[in-house]
């Protein structure tokens, strides 16, 4: 293990520890027992079959969105637009699914999956091509395109594609029962899609770290002028990362609607993509780290719900803990440097005889 990696892991674990300590202090200050709070949080995440199911599903969700961020970033493009890509994937697959109601699921599901992937990838292609050809910042375009996608889908679900079923205020027509993914654990959110998410995540991980394509993407992301000079197709590799990222997001959009909902609903996502994006950023876009951190954050998120209902500690506390981790990770360079200066100043003091130390 390299020195940099060791330093990174050290600062990661100390950041998490600090965040948990600060979380405990906040609990104590607000009149709760921190130990009890954390105990309820852990049982909330792992105490029953149902909660384990929920934690695993949350982990899967964070994994696929985190890896989606990472694969785009490896090719040098920061995809902030996963949320919009997810919405388009969801609506495309739900529209097609409803149109295919009554046909064989063996035909319908692959077609819907294809529609979701294409919609997500296509929507990611737009900011990618703008970045490569015209050097327009993808951060701005992807953020703006999120709103476009979400409002566009809201319009469709309340207008042209609105279901005619009685009693449904907004949303597309419901999907054939045979098309829906069944739940693996009763009452939990864990559906069959978790296997597909696992396969996709592992495939993309493999692509990123063990193939010539991933190798080319990495060099393009680090220095695109160099990549072009060295004979790589830098533009294509950058766009490819975004296409894969968008496709993964579109796919997740479909999984959400086909698994947990019965149709496209405008509120199916609670900004899932941004949670995954944060995990990816904290873990410096490293796939293995993203998978592990997804599990940690997934458990926190699920456990927090029980914590709030049983002890009254607000689940917002989890946001604080996440933010503190992000804060310390972002500041690690500076903190380490100032620690280094501190110790060298002490050394200089010692050298002059320790008069003032």
């Amino acid at each position: 293990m390299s020195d940099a990696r060791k330093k990174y892991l050290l600062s990661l674990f100390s950041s998490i520890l600090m965040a948990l300590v600060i979380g405990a202090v906040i609990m104590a200050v607000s009149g709760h027992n921190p130990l009890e709070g954390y105990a309820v949080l852990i049982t909330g995440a792992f105490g029953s079959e149902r909660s384990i199911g929920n934690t695993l599903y949350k982990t899967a969700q964070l994994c696929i969105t985190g890896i989606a961020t990472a694969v785009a970033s490896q090719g040098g493009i920061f995809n902030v637009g996963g949320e919009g890509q997810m919405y388009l994937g969801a609506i495309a697959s739900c529209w097609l699914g409803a149109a295919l109601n009554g046909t064989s699921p063996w035909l319908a599901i692959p077609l819907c999956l294809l529609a979701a992937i294409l919609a997500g990838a296509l929507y990611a292609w737009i900011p990618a091509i703008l970045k490569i050809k015209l050097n327009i910042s993808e951060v701005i375009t992807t953020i703006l395109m999120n709103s476009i996608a979400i409002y566009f889908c809201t319009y469709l679900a309340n207008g042209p594609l609105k279901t005619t079923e009685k009693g449904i205020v907004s949303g597309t027509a419901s999907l054939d029962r045979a098309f829906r993914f069944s739940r693996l654990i009763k009452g939990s959110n864990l559906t069959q899609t978790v296997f597909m998410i696992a396969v996709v995540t592992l495939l993309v991980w493999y692509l990123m770290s063990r193939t010539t394509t991933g190798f080319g993407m990495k060099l393009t992301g680090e220095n695109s002028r160099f990549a072009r000079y060295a004979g790589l197709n830098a533009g294509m590799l950058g766009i490819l990362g975004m296409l894969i990222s968008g496709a993964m997001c579109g796919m997740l959009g479909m999984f959400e609607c086909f698994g947990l909902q019965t149709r496209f609903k405008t509120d199916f996502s609670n900004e899932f993509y941004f949670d995954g994006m944060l995990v990816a950023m904290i873990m410096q876009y490293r796939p293995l780290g993203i998978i592990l951190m997804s599990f940690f954050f997934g458990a926190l998120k699920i456990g927090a719900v029980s914590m709030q209902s049983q002890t009254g500690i607000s689940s917002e506390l989890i946001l604080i803990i996440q933010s503190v981790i992000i804060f310390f990770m972002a500041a690690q360079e500076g903190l380490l440097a100032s620690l280094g200066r501190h110790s060298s100043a002490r050394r200089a003091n010692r050298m002059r005889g320790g008069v003032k130390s």
Partner: protein
Amino acid sequence: MSQEVTPVVSMRHITMQFPGVLANDDVSLDIRKGEIFALVGENGAGKSTLMNILYGMYTPTDGEVLVRGERLFRFDPNEAIRHGIGMVHQHFMLVPSFTVAQNIVLNTEPRRGLFYDFRRANQIVEELVQEYGLAVRPTDTVRDISVGLQQRVEILKALYRGADILILDEPTAVLTPQETDELFDVIRSIVRIRQMTVIIITHKLNEVMAISDRVGVMRQGKLIGVCQTCDVNERILASMMVGKDVLMEPFIREKTKATEPALVVENLSVLDNRGLPAVRGLSLKVFPGEILGIAGIEGNGQSELAEAVTGMRHVQSGQIRILNRDVTGMDPAQIRALGVSHVPEDRIQTGLSGKSDIVDNLVVGREKEPQFSIRGFHLKKKRMKEYAEELSANFDIRGGGIHTPTQSLSGGNMQKVLVAREFSSGSRVMIISQPSRGVDVGAMDFIHRQIMEKRSEGCAILLISADLDELYRLSDRLCTIYEGSITGEFDPSVTEKREVGLYMTGRGEEAGHE
């Protein structure tokens, strides 16, 4: 020689340990007031580290520094500046969009009330310029002035802050021969006027001989010796630097018998980044087994020529043919596939990926070959590592293992990584720009031998360099370039450098009249 009782700077038993690298190993050095002291050594010998300690950039692991007998307790550039130490780094630290005067007074701007007093700033700088006889206009924008003038701005900045000990880190690496001479005049005058002490880090031995009073030689973190410059010569210094005799002996060569050129450039015109003509109707031919040298002062279209030939830059008009194929308008990947390799002048932005390790930088471009991947897809990581180990050994790449990011290597070792990759790809045409810029004597000789070996393998080599000595040593034919056109062709074995120099500056007619 003055008989100083206490030296102006005294560094005692300095040791600097970086992770995995002992950069300075128990170095003790005294600098006398009013002298010009040259510090020489190969890349990675620790000379920049030692001077960065003096300037407060690093805190040494062990040892102490005394300035005028007073001990430095804190290693911090502000502290160093307070003690009258100034440093001009290899990469300038100037704000390009500011004027000369604004850059010089930065952080200590003269004010009138709440406002920045621009007029006063210009006045102050003008006085400084007059005092030292430096030809710089305070109102010019830094972006628009030449590198040589930018360097003077850096020197003025140090003088303005009251420096009387000035450290110059490889000041001539970016200068033309004329600018180097002017810089030396400047240094001599500031030493005379202000009783300044100047320390120059360099590895150009002729410059050491030309300017310094004393010279210190470093090798592998140790100070090998300090001599009076008048007592030594370049040959002695070179062998002290590398620990053995280095002979820059001329190469024995036979003229190529090839009749079919491998690289043909016809009537080429190319624009620079600002959209102005940089190469204007240039034509040349390079034959297999031949080195064609391009001599010129930087900024006369050499960079754009190299980029156009390798597909990095759009061709405005004209034609480029490589191995009988028209490659005009092809992208770099296609041109490389024909058997072309390219050593670019800018190794940091173009030639390497700084964040990637040595392995990735050596393999890139060849990762789809069967030896590195299965079906051009699944990487053979183990084989990649072995290959990197082999090349690191063959090309003597030092400064950490194969997993070191190239940005933390020294300039010379970066260049070796780049050369190792480009020289190992079995190419038939090579475009080589500034192969030994910022590289020490030993590495330079090594790179030259590699180039000659490629030549004897039948490679057609276009060599672009700002170093006339290098061109003379390597080239079979020599062309001068001035304002984007070829101004003359010479046989270096029979032409004097002085004559070539005239053609480089566009004064070829004068040579003709002589």
